[in-house]
């Protein structure tokens, strides 16, 4: 059945031409250990289409210059391209204005920016910060550090047996003391897609500010930060076909405007005197130093590529893939899937364990079969502790993955079982 996608798929998938999409990803056309590369680790970092790679090269070859400075053509061109990329990213997430988009290194830096800048200005001893047990370390540690600086306390929303948030707990956990609610949109380990809009409404009802970690959702589905109803959103470029070293923080203008700077230095200032300075306006006041110019421009190119392909189409295709993967993997004896077992509210990251074979050994066997997966705790140690497993193996899918690659994954798992039988 798998592999004959055109025969069994609904109409909207027949127009999703994965073979053509794969053609523009040069890295996919190689062998790994003598087998065609099946890259099933896009949740860690996605591959890049040719247009993104060429955009980087074009910048460095043709108009490399610092932004917001030089009165010469190259710098003007670089500045124009950098700011145009900001506009593309803003439209991609439906921000009200490009000025609400701060270029940072990645989602981790975006969350740290909020925790330091907004956090230090707004969090006091006794305040509470509400997270979930499925958060990536990047959405836990910055808040722990803020809590340690301020004397605030952390609360966690728990998960049920299928890896969904226990939202009944919100009544108890959301109080007048709750000042920040920070929740992942799509879990990088469980694949769960959380009801961000509903949680944001509940957060706002008690006067809390809401941050969504959209690092795993923005690459895979249409995102509208205004419709999500959140106040901040953080994501990384490299997980959405863009280069490493660039990501974005989106924040509501009123909140960003009221926040003190995060890092001090060049670009973020208006007037610098020996004993004090005044600062540039949002978003420049949060972009100290020379930014990742070429990378931001190439992220704009990645956004164009994703939009041309169609975020809804990408999402639908991945839903198909994850449905197939859930079906095939549930047939493997001794395999336990962590996270929702149905496609509903589930993204294309799937973590599992296999009886008798350590995740590391699974990944090693798959590596020899040309299948790249992640093994470990995927930067969610508290979640793994809760699941009572030291590590899991994770297969994650993106727009360029083939249904046949799920077959190869399953065959690799069966081989691992034979070796360790």
């Amino acid at each position, binding site marked *: 059945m798998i592999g004959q996608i055109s025969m069994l798929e609904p109409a909207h998938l027949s127009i999703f031409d994965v073979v053509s999409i794969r053609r523009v990803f040069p890295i996919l056309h190689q062998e790994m250990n003598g087998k065609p590369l099946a890259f099933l680790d896009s949740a860690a970092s996605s591959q890049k289409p040719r247009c993104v790679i060429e955009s980087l090269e074009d910048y460095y070859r043709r108009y490399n210059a610092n932004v917001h400075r030089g009165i010469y053509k190259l710098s003007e061109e670089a500045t124009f391209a950098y700011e145009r990329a900001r506009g593309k990213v803003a439209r991609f997430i439906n921000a009200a204005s490009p000025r609400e988009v701060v270029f940072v290194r990645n989602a981790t830096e975006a969350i740290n920016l909020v925790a330091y800048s907004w956090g230090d200005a707004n969090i006091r001893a006794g305040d509470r910060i509400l997270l979930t047990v499925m958060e990536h370390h990047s959405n836990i540690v910055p808040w722990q550090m803020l809590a340690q600086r301020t004397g605030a306390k952390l609360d966690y929303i728990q998960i049920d047996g299928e890896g969904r948030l226990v939202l009944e707990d919100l009544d108890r956990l959301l109080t007048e003391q709750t000042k920040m609610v920070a929740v992942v949109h799509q879990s990088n380990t469980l694949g769960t897609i959380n009801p961000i809009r509903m949680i944001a409404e509940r957060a706002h009802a008690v006067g809390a500010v809401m941050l969504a970690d959209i690092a795993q959702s923005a690459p895979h589905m249409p995102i509208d930060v205004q419709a999500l109803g959140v106040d901040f959103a953080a994501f990384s470029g490299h997980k959405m076909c863009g280069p490493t070293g660039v990501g974005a923080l989106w924040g509501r203008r009123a909140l960003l405007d009221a926040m003190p700077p995060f890092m001090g230095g060049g670009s973020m200032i208006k007037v610098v005197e020996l004993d004090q300075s005044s600062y540039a306006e949002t978003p420049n006041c949060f972009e100290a130093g020379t930014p990742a110019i070429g990378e931001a421009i190439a992220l704009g190119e990645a956004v164009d590529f994703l939009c041309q392909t169609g975020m809804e189409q990408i999402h639908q295709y991945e839903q198909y893939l994850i449905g197939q993967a859930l079906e095939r993997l549930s047939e493997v004896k001794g395999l336990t899937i962590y996270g929702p077992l149905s496609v509903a509210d589930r993204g294309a990251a799937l973590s599992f364990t296999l009886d008798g074979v*350590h995740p*590391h*050994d699974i990944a*090693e*066997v798959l*590596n020899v079969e040309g299948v790249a997966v992640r*093994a470990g*705790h995927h930067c969610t140690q508290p979640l793994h502790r809760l699941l009572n497993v*030291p590590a899991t193996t994770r297969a994650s899918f993106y727009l360029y993955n083939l249904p046949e690659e799920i077959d190869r994954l399953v065959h690799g798992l069966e081989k691992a079982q034979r*070796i360790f039988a």
Partner: protein
Amino acid sequence: MDDLYREYILEHYKHPHNNGRIENPTVSHEEYNPLCGDRIVMDLLIVDEAIQDIRFMGEGCAISQASASILTDEVKGIPVEEAKAFSKEQLLDLIGIPLERNPVRLKCALLSLKTLKVALYGANNIQDNDLD
């Protein structure tokens, strides 16, 4: 990989030697590899400056657990000074699989040696880069 999972590695993994705890160990130490969740706890009974008995418990991949099985076989009964001098090259020779270009799996393979060395030297007297 077929190199990595040679029969004797799998044999050590499935039926580890010196597996278990020692009731009243002279020294005991646990090491953890946060990257992959491998864990090894080692108990040593030291009599007359020699390792009279050594046992380990752990969880982790085949390489990490087979390595602990092989290492404990090797140092059981030898003088403490000799065990202290036991090098990572010696252990890798015994494991006998090509790990030089695989830094992640190298960490798995050397976790047992790190556990032993910290047990023998104490945590403060060990140079991490000797083992990492």
